[in-house]
């Protein structure tokens, strides 16, 4: 079964455990600045929203890469950056409509979410289940359930 990250912003408290887990998994350091997932705070509304790559089926980043440094992982469905091949041209960062591919000036390559090879650290670290790793074909299940409850006869 193909799985995907499911993000439910209403459960997020903005603690950044996901950002630390991501940077630690990928860079060996607790460092939100190097996280592939970002939590955004909308202060005036009192809302938080984690956001990262949704692993597009037709991935703009992958198609835009001139050196084929972004490849599909058949097992997880993620689009992964082969950093040895990446030349840091940043065309993918322009191509991605969502801004989830970003340049890392320390390495001269781009970084993006690769679902940690099928065991995403952010989902494991989230204390409120705002980020979960679920059946990719049913990421709307929780929301459907909530609305189904509303449709029950009173």
């Amino acid at each position: 079964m193909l799985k995907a990250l499911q993000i439910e912003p209403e459960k997020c408290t903005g603690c950044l455990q996901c950002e630390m887990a991501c940077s630690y998994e990928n860079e060996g350091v607790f460092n939100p600045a190097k996280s592939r997932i970002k939590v955004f705070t909308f202060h005036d509304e009192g809302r938080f929203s984690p956001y990262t790559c949704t692993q597009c089926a037709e991935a703009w980043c992958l198609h835009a890469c001139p050196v084929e440094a972004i490849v599909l992982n058949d097992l997880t469905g993620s689009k992964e950056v082969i950093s040895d091949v990446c030349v840091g041209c940043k065309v993918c960062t322009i191509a991605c409509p969502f801004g989830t591919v970003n340049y890392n000036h320390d390495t001269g390559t781009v970084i993006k979410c690769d679902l940690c090879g099928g065991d995403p650290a952010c989902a494991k670290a989230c204390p409120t289940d705002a980020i979960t790793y679920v059946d990719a074909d049913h990421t709307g299940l929780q929301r459907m359930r909530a609305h189904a409850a509303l449709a029950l006869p009173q």
Partner: protein
Amino acid sequence: MAWTGSVLRVNLTEGRCERKPLNMLWARRYLGQRGLATKYLCEEIDPTVDPLSPENKMIMATGPLTGTMASTGGRYSVITKSPLTGAIACSNSGGFIGAEIKNAGWDMIIFEGRAPTPVYLYLENEQAELLPADAIWGRSVWETDEWLHRQHQNPLLRIAAVGRAAEQGCLYAGIINDLHRAAGRSGVGTVMASKNLKAVAVRGTLGVGNIKDPAAFIKATEAGKKVLADGAVTGQGLPEYGTQVLMNVINEVGAMPTRNMREVQFEGAGKISGEAMHEPRPSDGKPNLVTNAACFGCTIACGRISTIDRGHFTIEHKPEYWGASGGLEFEAAWALGSDIGVDDLDALTYANFLCNEDGFDPISFGSTLAAAMELYELGLIGKDETGGIELRFGSAEALTTTAELTARGEGFGKMLGLGSKRLCEHYGRPDLSMTVKGQEFPAYDPRGIQGMGLTYATSNRGACHLRSYTVSSEVLGIPEKTDPLVTEGKAAMVKAFQDATAAVDSAGLCVFTTFAWTLADIAPQIAAACEGDWSVENLVETGERIWNLERQFNMAAGLTGKDDTLPKRLLKEAAKTGPAKGRVNDLEKMLPEYYQLRGWTTDGIPSKETLDRLGL
């Protein structure tokens, strides 16, 4: 190693920023944050120094676990000599800037001297510079925050700043970070403003990568998070109601200081409680509380994000306050509520917004206003002095108007900004000031919770609940239930809590974790991250060392055992209602035993044997 090993020394007089190595010998003995910065302060300033002179220093310090995945590992403290108390000040704050300083590669920032003209510190990893702050001097914290983000074209900057209250000399001005988190107590913001330092803007992208044993650290921190998630207070009470979970509880045990502590129960508590913040209001059907929110790395998330009713008289014509911001914590709700007899939740939330917007401590402000209201009632303050404001207990208008004036240091707000002790002395009734060592009380009446009387009397920074929160045992039963009306055993409990709390603070963790964690949960996390012996026993001893060092500073600053006392009202006037009816605080039954357990003389001076044992 988890310490970065770097201290940023900022000489404001000369406009110079320098990197210095952290004294690792001291780090092994004082851990970090509160303890380690206290050691630096004690070594570097004369304790008799005028707190608002250039000779005082101000240290912003992180702990070894700040910036790591340890739950709540985002705390930082500001350590300096307090202008409110003349004692040591150590104000702890959450939010995100502590972790950002650490991520930029610094354990602490030591500010020295005074800048000739207003400046702010811009810190981006190893790059540190002082930049002109003329454009933001005279502006609020919120305006400063917005200006700095725009000026540097960087939404990711984390900012701590002082507001107009600090600039105008309010003696309990705080330093606000991330818009609504505060190093709030003892006037640390006043010290910052006295140095012509308006703000600190930080961007750190280096991270924390030098954990001693990463695998053991991940294991220990995961175990710790599970304990917090399973704890009734940390897993349910605090996320749901915040610290406001306490409002009804404390009122029921008869320890809710009301109307300048004349009474111990407030008839309007239910209207300003955590539960009330969840109630939909009639006007728009929305509750006061928008969401709970976490500080950096915190898996508890007790923070409150609130809105004020747009039709409320305070903001009806002020759309700038229509959005959400930091809501009421229990301490603010008590001080801005029951202590002045006001039960208007929206008025309290508005006053709390103002405290954040212009950086002043809601506890000290509310308590000072309460004293002023009693003086007004007695006819000792007249309407001519208040600028026409009727300072009546229960008046929401009096609260919000005086909060506006105190925020800007105008009119009667200037007088309120001096704090309860100076206000009551000015009007000839020092006995009406509900303070210890010049600092106003927090929200627990020590007639109803006896251990808190000893906590307040002996706190090194003046009346404070965060130095030994015996409420945990006496009311909540954590780690075990004791009777709040009994004094027996409280001296030992206060000492144990004081020492443990000093260690928790110094690690860079939040003291609220101790509603579920003991030092046995914390020690493995520190030990996995840091070199040295960080067993439970050594943490207790480190805490005791820190406590005695703070005490030594205070003694050298001119305080004595005579300052370890409570206002006459709490020692002589019995509680009128509730479970503690007829009781006063029996401090004299606890204090001698406490001195003895501490290894201090009967005058409260640390003995030579004690100091030798702790290596002081």
